[in-house]
């Protein structure tokens, strides 16, 4: 694999040997429930890792708390299973101080958007070199089935027998609102698409948020079924490709258009004005289109759900700038001299 594919990882040492997915598997027994979507994600990530061409000792997986956060224990890299919601902050400290590492954050909808919402939005705006994989199953799994911040309003769960009252978060909208430079969405069971999105995220300099629709077959089975059922999924999924017109449907018969007021909507391709069909532009500085796309789907029926890279723009990463400040300080003032620091400029002698 050419190293040029991941310029954002230019400071991370390359592996001398070709690694395989097997090299990234640990001897720990995987303890997710049988049938959990996490297995597919784990396999996809382990399968993708060798493509980075990095030394595996320079890769770190950091997680918070929740089912998904057990992930680092199954990756034969360095790994840190931290506390609830704090993984982005832990990973920020690590990534900022160690630019020679490829740092991945594994989190879930509760971990990232409820207890850890603050850390997530600040990691995104800072643009630290982190790749955040947010497993969204719209439910609390490890605590056994309470509603989550992405559960649809009215959800009947153990803690909401009459239905949940909170309005839900849309993680992609949240990330775009938090000034994220890279935001994508994919699906656990679509390994090819998941791998493509991981590749794009790894190539991005700065924070990448990847929302992965993941099925919890115990507490919220079928939550993403309209996007998985082979009979209907292609009519529901909008696959975003940068630079291409947004056309979708099992028969490629639907498209996304912008009307004269700027509003975007889905319409039949046959009757659409070709000039109004939107060409996806993930590199657009203005996040307006990406945000509009993130609002296109119906969060209950999941019709018109875009997947792929919503936004991928260039902005210097926090860690790079932080390291530059350190280097500049040494360049301008020389390496610190402790004795002269302690003396300061205002001393007197007692003889």
């Amino acid at each position: 694999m050419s190293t040029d594919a991941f310029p954002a990882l230019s400071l991370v040492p390359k592996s001398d040997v070709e690694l395989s997915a097997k090299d990234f598997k640990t001897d720990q027994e995987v303890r997710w429930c049988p049938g959990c979507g996490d297995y597919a994600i784990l396999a996809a990530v382990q399968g993708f890792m060798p493509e980075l061409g990095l030394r595996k000792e320079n890769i770190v997986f950091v997680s918070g708390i929740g089912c998904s956060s057990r992930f680092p224990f199954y990756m034969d890299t360095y790994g840190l299973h931290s506390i609830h919601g704090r993984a982005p902050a832990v990973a920020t400290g690590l990534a900022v101080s160690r630019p020679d590492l490829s740092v991945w954050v594994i989190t879930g909808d509760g971990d990232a958007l409820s207890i850890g919402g603050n850390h997530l939005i600040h990691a995104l705006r800072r643009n630290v070199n982190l790749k955040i994989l947010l497993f969204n199953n719209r439910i609390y799994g490890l605590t056994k089935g309470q509603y989550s911040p992405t559960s649809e309003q009215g959800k009947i769960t153990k803690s909401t027998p009459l239905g949940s009252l909170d309005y839900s978060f849309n993680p992609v909208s949240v990330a775009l609102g938090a000034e994220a430079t890279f935001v994508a969405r994919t699906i656990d069971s679509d390994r090819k698409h998941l791998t493509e999105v991981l590749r794009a995220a790894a190539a991005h300099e700065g924070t990448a948020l990847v929302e992965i629709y993941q099925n919890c077959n115990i507490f919220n089975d079928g939550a993403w079924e309209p996007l998985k059922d082979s009979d209907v999924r292609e009519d529901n999924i909008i696959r975003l490709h940068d630079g291409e017109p947004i056309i979708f449907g099992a028969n490629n018969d639907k498209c996304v258009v912008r009307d004269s007021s700027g509003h975007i909507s889905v319409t039949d391709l046959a009757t659409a004005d070709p000039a109004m069909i939107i060409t996806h532009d993930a590199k657009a500085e203005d996040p307006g289109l990406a945000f509009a796309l993130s609002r296109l789907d119906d969060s209950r029926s999941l019709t018109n759900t875009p997947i792929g890279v919503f936004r991928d723009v260039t902005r210097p990463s926090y860690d790079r700038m932080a390291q530059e400040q350190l280097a500049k300080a040494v360049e301008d003032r020389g390496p610190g001299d402790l004795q002269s620091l302690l003396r300061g400029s205002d001393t007197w002698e007692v003889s």
Partner: protein
Amino acid sequence: MAKQVIQLDRVVIRFAGDSGDGMQLTGDRFTSETAWLGNDLLTLPDFPAEIRAPAGTLPGVSSFQLAFADHVITTPGDVPNVLVAMNPAALKANIKDLPRGADLIVNADEFTKRNMEKVGYASNPIEDGSLEMYRVHAIPLTSMTVEALKEFDITKKEAERAKNMFALGLLCWLYHRPTEGTRAFLEKKFGSKPEILAANLKALEAGWSYGETTEDFSIQYEVRPAPMSTGTYRNITGNIALAYGIVAAGQLSGLDVFLGSYPITPASDILHELSKHKNFGVLTFQAEDEIAGATSAIGASYGGALGVTTTSGPGVALKSEAIGLAVALELPLLIVDVQRGGPSTGLPTKTEQSDLLQAMFGRNGESPVPIIAPQSPSDCFHAAIEAARIAVEYRTPVFLLSDGYLANGSEPWQVPDVATLPSIDPNFATGPNHTKDDGTSEFWPYLRDPETLARPWAIPGTAGLEHRIGGLEKADGPGTISYDSENHDRMVRLRQAKVDAVASTIPDLEVDDPNGDAKVLVLGWGSTFGPIGAACQIARRSGIKVAQTHLRHLNPFPKNLGKVMKSYERVIVPEMNLGQLSMLLRAKYLVDTVNFNQVRGLPFKSAELVDVITDVAASLEETK
């Protein structure tokens, strides 16, 4: 006109005014000139939490007390000999502390009807005789400053603002302080505003000249330099000394320093100071909240940096879960708690020692953390290095408990020779440490050093040592997740034993017991060292036999602490809390203590401690 010069051995001055009057700056400058003269000194700034409380009101009063002497002193003084009150509010807020016969310099211009009404003076105290027990110098500081600056092209308001320099000039004359340092300081501060600079210099000079010419001051005072050991000295506050200690710890260990911090009074100056020293490899990260301050530092420590987080009590409360994670991960983490009055938001700018039990026990589960407390502003430097040593060598979070008094107080500091500072050995793991049954080798992240019980610190980038750790209980040795009950019992005890083992590297507690025959011991910790020391000296001068000892290590305690306590008939424990150390002492050693507790937001007054010592010593005599 030559004036009479009187030699004094010790002077305590308090500058008091509105928060916007520049009293802290005036105090700082006077301190700097005093330090340069070679007096020993200690300072006590006292200011409101509000940046600019309503002008002329009692809550808006800011003060700066300074003691200086021709001998070594350990407190900023119980009561001032001189009070400079810039307005009626400053007079009202401070007059109760002024002893009979003291000098009182007031800014007469500010004693207007309106200003006096604001603070409840029905008549002018300067004129109504209520201040007759003091030597009152009522000086129209504002109008004299404005008059002196009339030739300058500045607004009246700008001229009025220079009145603190007029006051400083007068005090410098009165106490024979030089003004060169202040001139240099002003030149640096107002270099880009030549007119303001000239005006301030002129105000300073006018204040000096006023002292020289006025009949109001017939006497000048002199305080000779204090005999101090030879060397290079500078003045330093606790927060700066603490920041330097952190920089030094990075240098001594060869580790990059990572500070994750969220601004909070009175700890923010440590963040400000460390952010200036990037050329020492010090990376400062202003986090989104207290929790991220601690967790980002843990992430950096995982990566092989010296992770540090600085805060005050409310911040510690938020960081508790993260500190517990560091206990479980067994990674170095230096937690600096500059204590302030609590609970909750409490008294942000006032000092207190009430976080000891929070540091000791404020986490879920059995979660032991070593605790260190500095005893003076300059001692914050050495205490920070000691805390970092324990954190790095034992792979553990360590609390450094400073407080508001140490943070902002200052004293002369003999600049240490860096060659004499201890080294700190991170001793990173470089290879496998365990042989499997099949003869191949592997890395066990929780295989401990048999002596220190510290686990190996293997940092990312080290080939072959890839491992996963977290907050879940780990198997003793391999470090894999373990829910085994026997293993958990063993791991809980091992973590405790590791922290207890730190005691073997702590020097024995030394007792100051001049003749070795005292029956009363005063045992303190942290910033009360100075007032307790002064009180013991005063008590001894009146014939009371009293010993003093002071704890730097609060967890674990020095090995001989129990023996020391048991060798005295009475152990007095003064604390600026309701008895937190004494609770620990009683629980561990079954030795009773005589507690003296105050939570007034200010350091102890030595005189009050002398009374306690006197009473306890007398009660011993009576029981004989």
